[in-house]
């Protein structure tokens, strides 16, 4: 999940009787799967929660370019470099679709980005891990984009129209990411040297657990989960999505000829799902709080990009102004 912990402000769910007529009408629309559009009335909590969720999601796409950017100049062939750049360009695009969706709720893009830079807004914990060898590019595409797809496919049915439409566009492009990642790993496992094969296993060992953490903490009876479910801005629980991801990924892992760093991972005939070990939640919360291996570096890089690009934006405005004056004078 690209948005892992979203505060809804709800202490408990309101009953239909406790709702105002507007709130009741809104909830009935959501229950009937009618999409909510920007100009429709919506509870303030719904609007604020969506801004939080969509901005987290957008920030994740943008920060998500950085671990891959690390490998653009180091890609082993021109073909791989082109593929990697295409994927990174897609992430930038996904960030923009999402910021646009967020703006329809009255949020300001600059303000939300400023919150990210101040550490007030979150992004997915996964992007705070370093990408140390070329196989990481494969493992990121396969596992990280794979986990994102599981989550995003469900979000295509989210109740807010602009968010849902952004998700539909994103999902169309995301499967290229996952397939190119898996193919990198397949090539290395089939044609690689022993050293290269070891790189693949090393990448999986490091990224397996962080990928599972992407779905967020266990679902509890917290009002946040209940409220997000009732508003249909969340459609399935974190644990359900994580299980779906594991069930579809383990056979692909076996096909590669690799293993997961989890001694408890095994097929359960009875449940029809894979059992797996407990996630190190301390690590998850540490990374979320800003203490992962790359948190500071990621934010610093994002800030620099904005600051060092300021003159380009100023020049664009000056140029546009000059063109306008010329057109008026002519």
């Amino acid at each position: 999940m690209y948005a892992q912990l979203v505060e809804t402000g709800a202490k408990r769910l309101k009953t239909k009787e406790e709702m105002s007529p507007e709130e009741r009408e809104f909830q009935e629309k959501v229950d009937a799967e009618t999409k909510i559009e920007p100009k429709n009335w919506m509870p303030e909590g719904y609007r604020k929660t969506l801004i939080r969720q969509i901005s987290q999601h957008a920030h994740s796409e943008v920060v998500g370019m950085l671990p891959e950017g690390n490998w653009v100049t180091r890609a082993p062939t021109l073909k791989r470099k082109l593929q990697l750049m295409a994927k990174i360009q897609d992430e930038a695009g996904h960030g923009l679709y999402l910021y646009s969706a967020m703006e329809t709720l009255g949020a300001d893009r600059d303000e939300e980005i400023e919150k990210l830079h101040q550490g007030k807004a979150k992004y997915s914990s996964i992007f705070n891990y370093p990408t140390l060898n070329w196989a990481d590019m494969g493992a990121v595409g396969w596992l990280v984009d794979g986990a994102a797809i599981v989550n995003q496919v469900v979000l295509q049915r989210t109740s807010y129209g602009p968010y849902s439409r952004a998700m539909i566009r994103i999902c169309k492009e995301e499967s290229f990411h996952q397939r190119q990642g898996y193919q990198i790993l397949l090539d290395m496992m089939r044609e690689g040297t022993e050293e290269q094969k070891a790189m693949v296993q090393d990448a999986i060992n490091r990224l397996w657990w962080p990928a599972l953490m992407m779905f967020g903490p266990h679902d509890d009876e917290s009002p946040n989960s209940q409220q997000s479910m009732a508003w249909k801005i969340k459609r399935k629980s974190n644990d359900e999505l994580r299980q779906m991801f594991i069930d579809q990924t383990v056979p692909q892992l076996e096909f590669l000829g690799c293993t997961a760093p989890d001694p408890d991972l095994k097929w359960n005939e009875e449940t029809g799902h894979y059992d797996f070990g407990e996630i190190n939640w301390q690590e998850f919360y540490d990374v979320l709080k800003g203490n992962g291996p790359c948190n500071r570096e990621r934010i610093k890089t994002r800030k620099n990009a904005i600051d060092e690009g300021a003159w380009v934006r100023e020049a664009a405005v000056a140029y546009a102004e000059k063109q306008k004056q010329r057109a008026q004078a002519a």
Partner: protein
Amino acid sequence: MAEWRLYEVFVRSKHGLNHKHVGSVHAADAEMAMENARDLYTRRNEGVSIWVVPSDTITASASDEKEVLFDPSEDKVYRHASFYKLPDEVGHM
């Protein structure tokens, strides 16, 4: 982004089809909006033509006008071809 205008983007996916709204971009001017729209919305042959329109020049109907605007057409079934029943002998019309 405060000084950059918001533009709505419309893409014609194939010759002969209508332009369809796909999303929005920020840009310093229309030319830049066009370039940004191309990069953002047509990376995979999604279109053969793009329109960019400043968002603040669009007049949209409000949600509370829905009944006023659209209800009158609800009870005019005689505007649809299916309202007119013809004998089978007449054949396809």
